[in-house]
C-alpha cells in the first residue's frame, strides 16, 4: 500500500532535493495532527501535522486556510493527501513542510507503512522546556532520563541537535547507551504513556518497527542515515524490541509515545527494553513498614497474572508504595510498564517466575477498564492431598478440598511474646486422604468464620488454598503464610468436581489423615535408653532429637548451679539473658541494654544421668532445676552464698543424687571450637509414674517378642525393670531392700522348677556366681531406684544379654 504514497519523498525533502511543489506534488499521509498557537502569532491557530510517506516522517504546518478541513474532520489522522502547494523551510535547523494548499485524497485510511510509531503529540507547547529536558537527557543517565515522563516536546522542532532522546524503541535506547551514560538495562525510554491518543487500549496497537538489535548500534554511527533503517515488516515475537528511533540526530525531540507493546509476563527479563504488560492483580499485600539494618521503609507487593498464564510479583517501596497502593485493586486489569526487573526473592516470592518487578517513580500503572476474558482471575496448580505426604516440608502449594471439620479459633503466643490467632480444619479430597489446614492471623476471622458457619449449617464447603506451606509435625499439614489466599466455594471446575465426588461417595468414604492429631505436647514420647543416644547418633542430624529417658541422677556439679539472669520482661517472657556484674552492685543485660539492681538467679544444673544402659551428662535449666532441687534457684543461692550454710547446702545436694525421674531431653550436636559434641538439655522432668512406665516397657517387650522370638536382651532388662519397679517402689524402700537383701543373701537352694544353675552368691537360678548380676563390680553398676537393691535375683540384666537357654 505504500504505492499510494510517494515513497522516499521525505528523504528528498530533507536532502533539499525537493523544495517545493514545483518540483513535485507528493502524496503523503497524515499520521498526526496538532493544534497550537504559534508564538509569533498568538491570535491565530495553527495546525501542525506529521506527514508520512510510508517510510519516513516529516513535520508539516498547515496554512491557516486549511484549518477548516481539519475542523470539519475532512482532514484527520490517517488521511492521505497530495500537497499541491507547499514549501519546505528550515526552522531552527529542522525541516518543516509548510502547506498552503492540499487535496485530500482519502479521509479515512489506516496508517500506511510499518514504521508508524505513534508519536503521541501532547498538547504541550513550550518546546523549549521540552528541549531542555532533552538536554538533560542527553547528559544524564538513564534514570533521570526516565523522569521525563510527560514532558515531551512533540511540537518542538527546536534544536534537535541533541541526541534523540526520544526514542521509541531500542534504537533510542541504545542511543542512550552509546552516547550516554545509560546502562543497558535502561532502554528506559522516555515513554509517555497514557496521554493523548493513548494506544494503550486493546486493539489499538499500531505496528511498531523493530529494528533488529544488531542493526541499531550500527545505525547510530551513521547519522546520515537520517532515517530509520528499514524496519522488518513483521516484528519478531521473541524479541520485543521497541522500534528504533525515527529521527536520528535531528527531528523533533519527543517522548516516545509509541503504543505500549504488550508482552507476555513470561518473556520479561532484565534486558527487555521498554516493555508493558497487561495483567490482572491476583493478590495484593498489605502496606508494611519494616526496619532492617539498612534503614526502615514501607513496602507493598502484588501479584499479576496475564493471558498466557504468566505470573509475576510486583513490589514497591516507600513513596512508590504509597503512590500505587490505593490504585491497585485485586481482580482489575492493569497495564504496567517501566518497572525494574530483578531476580525473584525466593524467600518471599513463591510465584513461578525467575524475576520480580520493582516499581519506581518512573513506572506507570494504568488501569484497563475494558475487561479481557483472556486473562483468568487466578491461576492454580492444585495438588492432591495424597501428594502432600510426599512433598518436602516448607514447599509452597495450592490445594483444594472439601472441609470436613473446622475447629474454633485459638490464640497462640508467639516466641516474641505477641499473640496470634490460629484455626485449623480438615480438608478431604478425592485421593482419599485428609489433611489438616491451619489458618493464621486474619484468615481465622475472615474465611475461618465463613467456613465455620457453613459447616455449622451442615454443609461441607469447598476450600481452595493458594500458596499454602507444607509443614511437618506429626505428619504433614498445610498452613497459611503471609501471601496465602483462601477461597471459599470458588467458582472453579475442580470445585465442581469435588462437590460431585463428595456427594457421591466422599462423604462417607474413609479418609486417612496425613496429619496426625495434634496432641497438646505435639511430640510423641520417644522412649530411649541412654546408650541409644550414642548408638543411634541422636542429635547429629540437622534438627535436634527429642527423647524421653527413664534415668537416675548420679551426680550434680555443684560449682555453677546457677547464673545471674536478667529479670526484665520482654513482652510476655522474661529476658533471662545472662547479666554481667558491673562491680557496683548493678547488673547489666546486653540484650535489653539496661542495668538492673537486682538480678534473677536461674538454675543451670549439670547432671549426670544414668540408666541401665549408660551414662550421660545433661544440662537442666530453671524449670527442670526447680523440680529436681525442690526449691527455687534463688533460695539455694542464698543458702550457699548469703547464709553460707554449707551443711544445709550439702544436704540438699546429696538428696538430689540417686533420684529417678523421667527426663524429656533435647539432644543436639553442637560445635565448640573444632569439635562437635552432642549435648543434651533437660526440657522437662517428671516423676516416674511406675504404672505407665511399666506398661511402656511391657509394650516394648511385646514388640521385641514379636520381632525376635526368644531374644532375651531387652526382655531381660525389661523384666528386671518390671519387677524392680513393681516391687521396689510400692511400699517402703526399707522393706524392699530388706526383702530382697534377705532373699539373696539366703543362698536359698532353688526349689521347684528345673533350676539348672544356681548361683552361690545370690541363690538364684539361671546363672552361676561368676555371672552373678549381684556383683557390683559387674557391668555398669546399675543403680536403680532409691537405694541399691541387692540385685534381687530378677535380673540377668547385670550381665547384659545373658541368655539362658533353659530356665
Amino acid at each position, binding site marked *: 500500500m505504500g504505492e499510494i504514497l510517494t515513497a522516499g519523498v521525505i528523504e528528498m525533502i530533507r536532502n533539499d532535493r525537493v523544495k517545493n511543489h514545483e518540483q513535485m506534488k507528493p502524496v503523503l499521509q497524515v499520521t498526526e495532527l496538532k493544534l497550537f498557537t504559534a508564538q509569533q502569532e498568538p491570535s491565530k491557530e495553527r495546525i501542525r501535522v506529521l506527514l508520512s510517506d510510508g517510510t519516513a516522517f516529516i513535520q508539516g504546518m498547515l496554512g491557516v486556510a486549511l484549518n477548516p478541513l481539519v475542523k470539519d474532520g475532512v482532514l484527520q489522522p490517517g488521511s492521505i493527501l497530495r500537497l499541491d502547494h507547499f514549501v519546505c523551510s528550515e526552522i531552527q535547523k529542522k525541516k518543516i513542510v509548510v502547506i498552503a494548499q492540499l487535496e485530500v485524497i482519502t479521509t479515512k485510511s489506516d496508517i500506511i507503512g510499518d514504521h508508524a510509531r505513534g508519536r503521541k503529540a501532547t498538547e504541550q507547547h513550550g518546546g523549549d522546556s521540552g528541549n531542555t529536558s532533552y538536554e538533560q537527557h542527553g547528559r544524564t543517565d538513564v534514570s533521570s532520563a526516565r523522569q521525563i515522563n510527560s514532558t515531551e516536546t512533540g511540537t518542538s522542532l527546536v534544536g534537535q541537535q541533541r541526541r534523540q532522546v526520544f526514542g521509541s524503541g531500542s534504537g533510542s535506547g541504545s542511543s542512550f547507551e552509546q552516547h550516554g551514560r545509560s546502562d543497558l538495562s535502561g532502554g528506559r525510554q522516555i515513554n509517555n504513556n497514557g496521554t493523548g491518543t493513548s494506544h494503550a487500549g486493546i486493539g489499538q496497537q499500531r505496528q511498531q518497527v523493530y529494528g533488529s538489535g544488531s542493526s541499531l548500534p550500527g545505525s547510530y554511527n551513521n547519522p546520515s542515515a537520517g532515517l530509520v533503517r528499514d524496519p522488518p515488516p513483521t516484528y519478531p515475537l521473541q524479541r520485543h524490541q521497541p522500534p528504533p528511533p525515527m529521527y536520528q540526530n535531528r527531528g523533533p525531540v519527543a517522548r516516545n509515545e509509541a503504543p505500549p507493546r504488550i508482552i507476555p509476563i513470561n518473556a520479561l527479563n532484565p534486558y527487555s527494553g521498554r516493555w508493558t504488560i497487561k495483567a490482572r492483580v491476583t493478590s495484593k499485600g498489605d502496606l508494611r513498614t519494616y526496619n532492617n539494618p539498612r534503614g526502615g521503609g514501607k513496602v507493598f507487593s502484588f501479584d499479576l497474572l496475564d493471558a498466557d498464564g504468566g505470573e509475576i510479583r510486583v513490589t514497591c517501596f516507600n513513596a512508590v508504595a504509597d503512590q500505587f497502593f490505593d490504585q491497585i485493586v485485586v481482580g482489575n486489569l492493569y497495564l504496567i510498564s517501566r518497572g525494574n526487573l530483578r531476580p525473584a526473592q525466593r524467600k518471599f516470592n513463591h510465584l513461578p517466575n525467575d524475576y520480580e518487578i520493582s516499581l519506581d517513580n518512573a513506572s506507570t500503572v494504568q488501569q484497563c477498564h475494558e475487561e479481557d476474558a483472556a486473562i483468568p482471575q487466578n491461576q492454580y496448580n492444585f495438588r492432591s492431598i495424597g501428594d502432600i505426604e510426599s512433598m518436602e516440608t516448607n514447599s509452597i502449594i495450592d490445594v483444594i478440598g472439601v472441609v470436613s471439620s473446622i475447629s474454633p479459633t485459638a490464640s497462640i503466643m508467639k516466641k516474641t511474646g505477641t499473640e496470634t490467632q490460629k484455626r485449623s480444619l480438615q480438608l478431604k479430597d478425592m485421593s482419599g486422604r485428609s489433611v489438616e489446614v491451619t489458618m493464621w492471623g486474619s484468615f481465622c476471622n475472615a474465611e475461618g468464620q465463613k467456613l465455620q458457619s457453613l459447616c455449622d449449617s451442615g454443609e461441607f464447603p469447598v476450600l481452595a488454598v493458594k500458596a499454602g506451606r507444607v509443614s511437618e509435625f506429626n505428619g504433614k499439614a498445610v498452613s497459611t503464610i503471609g501471601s496465602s489466599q483462601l477461597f471459599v466455594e470458588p467458582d472453579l471446575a475442580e470445585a465442581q468436581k469435588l462437590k460431585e465426588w463428595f456427594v457421591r461417595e466422599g462423604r462417607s468414604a474413609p479418609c486417612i489423615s496425613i496429619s496426625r492429631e495434634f496432641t497438646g505436647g505435639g511430640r510423641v514420647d520417644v522412649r530411649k535408653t541412654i546408650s541409644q543416644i550414642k548408638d543411634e547418633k541422636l542429635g547429629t542430624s540437622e534438627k535436634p532429637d527429642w527423647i524421653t529417658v527413664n534415668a537416675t541422677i548420679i551426680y550434680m556439679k555443684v560449682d555453677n548451679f546457677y547464673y545471674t539472669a536478667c529479670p526484665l520482661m520482654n513482652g510476655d517472657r522474661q529476658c533471662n539473658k545472662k547479666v554481667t556484674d558491673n562491680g557496683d552492685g548493678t547488673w547489666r543485660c546486653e540484650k535489653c541494654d539496661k542495668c538492673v539492681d537486682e538480678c534473677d538467679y536461674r538454675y543451670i544444673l549439670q547432671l549426670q544421668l544414668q540408666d541401665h544402659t549408660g551414662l550421660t551428662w545433661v544440662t537442666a535449666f530453671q524449670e527442670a532445676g526447680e523440680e529436681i532441687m525442690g526449691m527455687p534457684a534463688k533460695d539455694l543461692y542464698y543458702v550457699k552464698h548469703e547464709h553460707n550454710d554449707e551443711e544445709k547446702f550439702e544436704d540438699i545436694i546429696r538428696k538430689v543424687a540417686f533420684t529417678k525421674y523421667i527426663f524429656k531431653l533435647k539432644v543436639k550436636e553442637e560445635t565448640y571450637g573444632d569439635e562437635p559434641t552432642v549435648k543434651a538439655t533437660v526440657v522437662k522432668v517428671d516423676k516416674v509414674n*511406675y*504404672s505407665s512406665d*511399666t*506398661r511402656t516397657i*511391657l509394650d516394648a*517387650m511385646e514388640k521385641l517378642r514379636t520381632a525376635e522370638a526368644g531374644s532375651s536382651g531387652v*526382655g*531381660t532388662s525389661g*523384666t*528386671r525393670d*518390671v*519387677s524392680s519397679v*513393681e516391687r521396689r517402689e*510400692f*511400699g517402703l524402700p526399707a*522393706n524392699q531392700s*530388706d*526383702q530382697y537383701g*534377705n*532373699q539373696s543373701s*539366703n543362698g*536359698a537352694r*532353688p*526349689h*521347684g*522348677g528345673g533350676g539348672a544353675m544356681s548361683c552361690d552368691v545370690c*541363690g*538364684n*537360678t*539361671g546363672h552361676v556366681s561368676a555371672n552373678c548380676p549381684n556383683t557390683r563390680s559387674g557391668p555398669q553398676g546399675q543403680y536403680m531406684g532409691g537405694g541399691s537393691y541387692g540385685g534381687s*535375683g*530378677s*535380673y*540377668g540384666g547385670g550381665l547384659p544379654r545373658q541368655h*539362658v537357654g*533353659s*530356665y
Partner: protein
Amino acid sequence: MDTSSPSAFVNGSLMRRYIGQKVRTVIQVVGSDVGSVVGKSTDDLQIIVKGSPPTTTTPSTYLEVIGIAENENSIRAEVWTNFGNSFDPVNYNELCKLANGEFKHLFI
C-alpha cells in the same frame, strides 16, 4: 518376717502350680470375715486368704500376701503388706506371667 524360703509370684491361675509352697500375690480386697479375707486376684479370680490382716481391710485396697498356698485359691498368709489404693493390677499380672513363664530363670 520369715524369709527363709523364697516365694514365687503368682496370680490366681498360677497358684495351682505351687500348692504347698510359698507364694506371694497381690489381691484386691473384696470382703473380710473373721479370720480370713476374700479378695480378687489380679486376673480376676477369687482368692481366700486365711489369717488375720494387720489392719482392718477396707474393700478395694490392695494387699500383698505371702504365704503357703493351700489349694488353688487359698493362701495361708504369713506376711501382709498394704499396697494402698493405687496399684496397677495389670502390670502385676503381667509380671506374674513373665516370672513364671518366659523369665522363670530370673526368678526362683
